[in-house]
């Protein structure tokens, strides 16, 4: 295993990724650490802890913190887009065209690309947000279902009722499916054309990390002994199909997943800090090694697919070369 960099954030790593050629690691305490060929940099994004992080399509990230600020960070600068006030921001989402949405209590705020804002009160607290790939629909995850809001239109949202608390949501690449990770040990899904819904049970704990393959055919999830990958090839998507299970290590369990940006491989991180690469196409496995000291919380590939950044629960992070 060839380590390019190793650092300690001092608090839990919430997200990892790449800006330009530099690996970044977002720490729970509000500081982003960047490590690149020019060295290291620590940038304080928030006064107080970070509550939510999302990638920006143009590169960089969007974060919300205990300070009530919504901040966009790129390689060069950090700008405050909004001030949410006293309540904590519970959810963030970014559309492909750069529009953003955030949730505070029972209110959703939506900022269009021209900078204008709109408010959308909800019946229950907002727990998760996601834009569809086209950026035309905003899914609002509430306590008893999902409200689908058509962007730029007034009028009531389409409601998909389901009792439970979503923690994150994601549309499939073709926009036909909406997947929800729930607070309990299960995934919930909506086949939007139908509409019909389905559940994936059998996880020992809640799903806290997932990753789509770049072609959108598979959704890799954590939380089980191995990475469980759900197929979205068929018309009915994953409905009625068992998952592809890769890299099972029952003694430790999968805690982070990241699909390779170019090849049909998935990087799997475990509770003991180990990383394994598994092929989606056959019985091929590449053991990367013991990357972190403890439970991996974040994994992210460099866009060229030759580098992998990892972050752990303790804040022990790094980047490794993968060939």
């Amino acid at each position, binding site marked *: 295993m060839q380590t390019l960099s190793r650092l300690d954030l001092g*608090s839990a790593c919430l997200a990892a990724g790449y800006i330009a050629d530099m690996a970044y690691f977002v720490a*729970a305490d509000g500081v982003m650490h960047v490590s690149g060929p020019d060295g290291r940099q620590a940038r304080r994004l928030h006064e107080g802890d970070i*509550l939510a992080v999302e990638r920006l399509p143009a590169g960089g990230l969007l974060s919300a913190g205990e300070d009530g600020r919504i901040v966009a960070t790129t390689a060069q600068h950090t700008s405050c887009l909004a001030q949410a006030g006293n*309540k904590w921001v519970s959810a963030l989402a970014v559309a492909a065209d750069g529009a953003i949405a955030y949730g505070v*209590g029972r209110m959703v705020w939506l900022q269009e690309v021209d900078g204008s804002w709109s408010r959308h009160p909800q019946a*229950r*607290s907002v727990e998760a947000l996601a834009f569809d790939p086209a950026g035309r629909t905003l899914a609002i995850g509430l*306590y008893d279902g999902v409200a689908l809001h058509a962007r730029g239109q007034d009028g009531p949202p389409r409601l998909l009722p389901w009792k439970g*608390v979503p923690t994150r949501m994601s549309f499939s690449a073709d926009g036909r499916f909406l997947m929800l990770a729930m*607070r309990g040990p299960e995934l919930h899904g909506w086949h939007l054309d139908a509409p019909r819904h389905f559940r994936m049970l059998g996880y020992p704990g809640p799903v806290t990390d997932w990753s789509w393959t770049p072609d959108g055919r598979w959704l890799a999830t954590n939380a089980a002994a191995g990475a469980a990958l759900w197929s979205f090839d068929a018309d009915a998507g994953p409905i009625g199909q068992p998952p592809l299970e890769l890299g099972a290590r029952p003694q430790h369990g999968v805690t982070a997943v990241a699909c390779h940006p170019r090849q049909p491989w998935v990087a799997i991180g475990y509770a003991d800090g180990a990383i394994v690469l598994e092929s989606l196409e056959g019985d091929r496995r590449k053991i990367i090694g013991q990357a972190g000291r403890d439970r991996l919380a974040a994994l992210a590939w460099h866009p060229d697919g030759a580098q992998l950044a990892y972050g752990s629960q303790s804040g022990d992070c790094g980047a490794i070369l993968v060939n």
Partner: protein
Amino acid sequence: MTAAPEKIPVTVLTGYLGAGKTTLLNRILTEGHGKRYAVIVNEFGEIGIDNDLIVESEEEIYEMNNGCICCTVRGDLIGVLQKLLRRPGRFDAIMLETTGLADPAPVVQTFFMDEGVRERTTLDSVVTVVDALHLPLRLADGSEAGSQLAFADVVLVNKTDLVSPQQLADVEHSIAHINPYAAVYRTRQSDIDLSRILAIGAFDLERLDDADRFFARDHGDAGHVHDEHCAHRHGHDAAPQHLADIVSVSLQAGEIDGNLFFPWIHKLVDEQGERILRMKGILALQGEPRKYVIQGVHMIVESEHQRPWGENQARTSRLVFIGRGLDAAALGRAFEHCQA
């Protein structure tokens, strides 16, 4: 192997609007007693100063299923606690203030039902603030004041300067009728000695073992605030009026046969759990040298063995309930039938 980190104690502060919760909360935050608090409230109002870790959380109650127990929890608290506990080194304890209209049950149940919350926190006590002037009205108007008292481990009877001694005595009678087991203190401007409400371990089964401190309240010990006319148990009401529909039932027996008791208690909470607000007990189980302590909230029951009975201690079993529509006589007979 490192030891598991200590669980963060959580104090639930309840009581209707205007009783004095905010004053108390501000005192806790500003007085120099060496502890740092994270505070969770429904609305900021006038709480705290800069740098205090105060979180505003909108109440989201939902039903949670956990094996065979189904009950309501505060979903929003689960999310807030998850985030707060990512960096627990920032605070020593958590104060959780509920709204004046809140039924304390979902809040308390959250600390029993959610595994993540259970792993990292421990419920320390429920502190209920009422005021001597308005409590009779609150109890009569069917609001949650009765439940808030029933769930209390500590009750502060505030604004005692606004009422006559007779009014105060009547208020304390009403409180004792609902909950004879709470420690009741008279206060003005919430001026309680903070050591009486913080870090008291009211839900700690290990402390429940200390029968004298808790159950002896039935018999007018030093912890009581009543006069010698207190007789508000076993369904008999000596208080001036029935201001709330909550009663307390206190049962006593000798040695208990576990084979009879456990099926009975599980069936009881299953069938009547909705009506049982709180339950506590110390049992002398046949063939078991250790005390067996039990406590419950609605359908949730937890119990464990504790220290052995002392040589000079009578092996007496005690069980108390606070709830609505409880048949004290039937409960008493059933408990007696569990005797060895």
